């Protein structure tokens, strides 16, 4: 798709009266024109929705498009990107919300249409082109093509295709990308901490999401660098630059990890203690986002640790082999590298020469009329869409191997349901249990030992009325089967109302 420039009839303000602006002034203009061009595909969606067969005017296509770019950016993983279907499925609720009355098939069609147009499936480059004009150093006016993509498709594992948001798309989305990745992230996180401590979760979520965009970009930059290292050892400076870079990145990971864990602890507390469901939900979302950041950092770190051994193995292979007497042609350094900066017209001459001499030979096919008839009459082989039939899995019921039955547990709980004013010795409980069932004392002993460290925090948060506890007062347990302390087991009543008041205060 090409967005044409204004026609030549557009009046030039800098005609006779003013000299043509220099290239320096023009450069900023060109940059802004390109930034502007990135938004054109989104506007174009709304302009073109009228052409779709059906009543699609009610959909806000630009909104759906931005949501898609958002989703793709958030789903961009270290190794792969977002899956087509996943994106369509995730954006569906938003499309459906725009027109609740319409059928799901139509919503899906809109989602797909937007996604396909963001990829620009129709063009061979699968990208967009905008035309803009600049002045050269000689003051001559030149029209130029600006090619860009918003969402690109990249190969994933096993031949699958994934989506990635391009830098241009992230620009459109986040804006102001011309900043240092690291410092921007630190700033975003400091902001987040402050916001959380003041309890302003709505803003905090926005800041956390922005921090995650930054994290994704950071990981992407590192992935590219490590890929280059893997491909060609001599291509990178392993004496200083790369070790420095790795150390810097590891420091970064350690730093971020500490930082984000601290945030996580804070928000978790906020989540657990928040009373208002809206706050609780926001805090829970925030926890997910920060967890995701931590996961990405961990992934990054493992990549960084792989780099060293990889370098040593490659060095062994490349540097310590017996040198070959004759020197060969350096295909990359002497052919690929010089060819790429050439204008395509000249470069094609070189690649053509390589192709003509580098593809080997083909024996020309001679066709017999008899074979030809047979070939033409053979029906085409049907491509199997579903693949081979899956065999029915043979399921075997797993035997119930629990040591104690439900009835035993009920009996033990009944035994331990003590009145709050009358705690009992463990020895007495065991003896009583043994009278009804020889297995029961084991379960009672287990529950009693657990009660020695009662889950106070959970009970506090869940507003429990009472709690089973066990205390060791130094008395030795005299029992034929068990040894240790003769615990005092009892029930403590909890002040549920007081705790609730406490919690709402904390929130």
């Amino acid at each position, binding site marked *: 798709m090409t967005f044409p420039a204004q026609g030549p009839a557009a009046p030039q303000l800098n005609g006779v009266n003013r000299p043509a602006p220099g290239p320096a002034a023009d450069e900023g203009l060109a940059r802004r024109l390109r930034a502007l061009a990135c938004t054109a595909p989104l506007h174009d969606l709304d302009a073109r929705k009228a052409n779709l067969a059906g009543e699609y005017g009610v959909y806000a296509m630009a909104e759906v498009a931005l949501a898609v770019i958002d989703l793709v950016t958030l789903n961009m993983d270290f190794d792969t990107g977002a899956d087509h279907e996943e994106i369509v499925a995730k954006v569906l609720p938003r499309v459906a919300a725009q027109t609740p009355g319409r059928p799901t098939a139509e919503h899906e069609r809109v989602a797909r249409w937007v996604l396909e147009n963001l990829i620009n499936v129709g063009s061979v480059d699968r990208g967009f082109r905008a035309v803009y004009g600049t002045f050269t150093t000689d003051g001559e006016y030149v029209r130029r093509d600006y090619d860009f993509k918003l969402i690109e498709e990249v190969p994933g594992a096993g031949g699958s295709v994934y989506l990635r948001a391009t830098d241009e798309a992230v620009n459109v989305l986040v804006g102001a990308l011309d900043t240092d990745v690291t410092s921007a992230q630190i700033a975003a996180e400091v902001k987040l901490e402050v916001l959380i401590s003041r309890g302003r979760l709505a803003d905090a979520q926005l800041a956390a999401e922005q921090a995650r965009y930054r994290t994704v970009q950071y990981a992407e930059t590192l992935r590219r660098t490590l890929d280059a290292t893997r491909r060609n050892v*001599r291509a990178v400076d392993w004496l200083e630059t790369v070790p420095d870079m790795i150390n810097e990145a590891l420091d970064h990971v350690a730093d971020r990890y500490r930082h984000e864990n601290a945030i996580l602890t804070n928000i978790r507390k906020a989540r657990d203690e928040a009373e208002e469901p809206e706050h609780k939900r926001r805090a829970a979302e925030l926890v997910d986002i920060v967890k995701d950041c931590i996961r990405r950092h961990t992934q990054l770190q493992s990549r960084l640790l792989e780099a060293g051994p990889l370098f040593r193995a490659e060095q062994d292979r490349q540097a310590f082999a017996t040198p070959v007497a004759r020197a060969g042609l350096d295909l990359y350094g002497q052919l690929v590298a010089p060819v790429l900066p050439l204008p395509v017209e000249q470069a094609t001459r070189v690649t053509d020469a390589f192709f003509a001499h580098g593809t080997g030979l083909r024996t020309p096919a001679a066709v017999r009329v008899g074979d030809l008839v047979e070939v033409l009459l053979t029906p085409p082989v049907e491509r199997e869409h579903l693949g081979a039939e899956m065999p029915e899995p043979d399921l075997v019921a797993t035997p119930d191997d629990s040591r104690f039955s439900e009835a035993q547990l009920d009996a033990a709980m009944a035994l331990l349901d003590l009145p709050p004013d009358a705690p009992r010795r463990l020895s007495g409980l065991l003896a009583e249990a043994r009278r009804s069932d020889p297995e029961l004392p084991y379960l009672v002993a287990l529950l009693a030992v657990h009660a020695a460290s009662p889950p106070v925090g959970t009970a506090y948060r869940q507003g429990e009325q009472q709690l089973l506890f066990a205390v060791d007062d130094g008395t030795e347990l005299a029992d034929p089967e068990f040894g240790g302390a003769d615990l005092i087991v009892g029930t403590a009543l909890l002040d549920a109302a007081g705790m609730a008041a406490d919690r709402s205060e904390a929130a």
Partner: protein
Amino acid sequence: MTPYDADETPQPDLASPPGAPDRGAPAADGAPAAAGQTTGQTTGPAPVTPADAADAARLVSFGLQPKLLPARDADYGELLRRYRDDPAFARLADAVATGLGLVVLEVSTRAGMAVTAAEDSVFAVRMGDYARRASADSADRFLHGLAHLAVAALAFPRPEDLADDGYIGRITVNGVDAFVRQACRRLEERAEQQGENTDPATDAPGLESAWRIYARRSATGATKDARRLAGSTTGIIAKAVTFLVDSGFLQRTGDDAGGAYRTTARYQLQVRDMAGSAAMAELLDLGIVPVADGSASLLPGEDTDALDLVADAGLPFHSG
């Protein structure tokens, strides 16, 4: 490459053992071969017989089946031995090849009878036959050529690898794509640093920098039937490697990263003796003289001019 004048009469070879009666024995066509032997025995140095010519042509025909391995075919192996031991036969086989429009790269048990098409030979591969779009679209033409060049560059990353007969290169389709993209990105960054505006003028597409053509083509794309998108760069590279497999230049080793391949001896010969020099000649013709001292060193700081582009790849973060 063995330059050979086809008009030259094969000279009787005094060095060949006169009493080598089993020389033509393994040839499949028994009767004429026996006749050849008799002549050979009676007159000493053997004149060329139709049986010898048949054997020589047979050896060349083996060479025309690039995927055939000498180790797998007893006849092929026997004819190769005869080529090595019998210079008169060798000249005959060379002459047959030259006459057919073939260039002999090497004849050995590892590479077999490695022949390739001379320019304008009926065996030559033409870009138009290779990819239909390539003849119409200059960008596609360039991308297909570049794909072949990039596959070779990644299969033999160092000059030593290309020179070392025992070296086996390993490539993957996605690896080649990532490699070229990386190189393109570096050029883009460099152009940005120098403040160049690389967007091409609208009315002169031929002047667009080559790397931009590659950079703006998408790497892959979803298709309705889950096949690779033919116009994407991985599609173009996959086409190139598949073609090279059919040429007996690569062998498929797995499905990782879009398809993994390793090189054969023939590919190394083809790139070293034919393609590399032809492309270099074209480049020199354009007035570009890439310099390299031939020893790519691992030590940083010793980069040759040719490696300069790789070395100042500007590592990690290009922020602002």
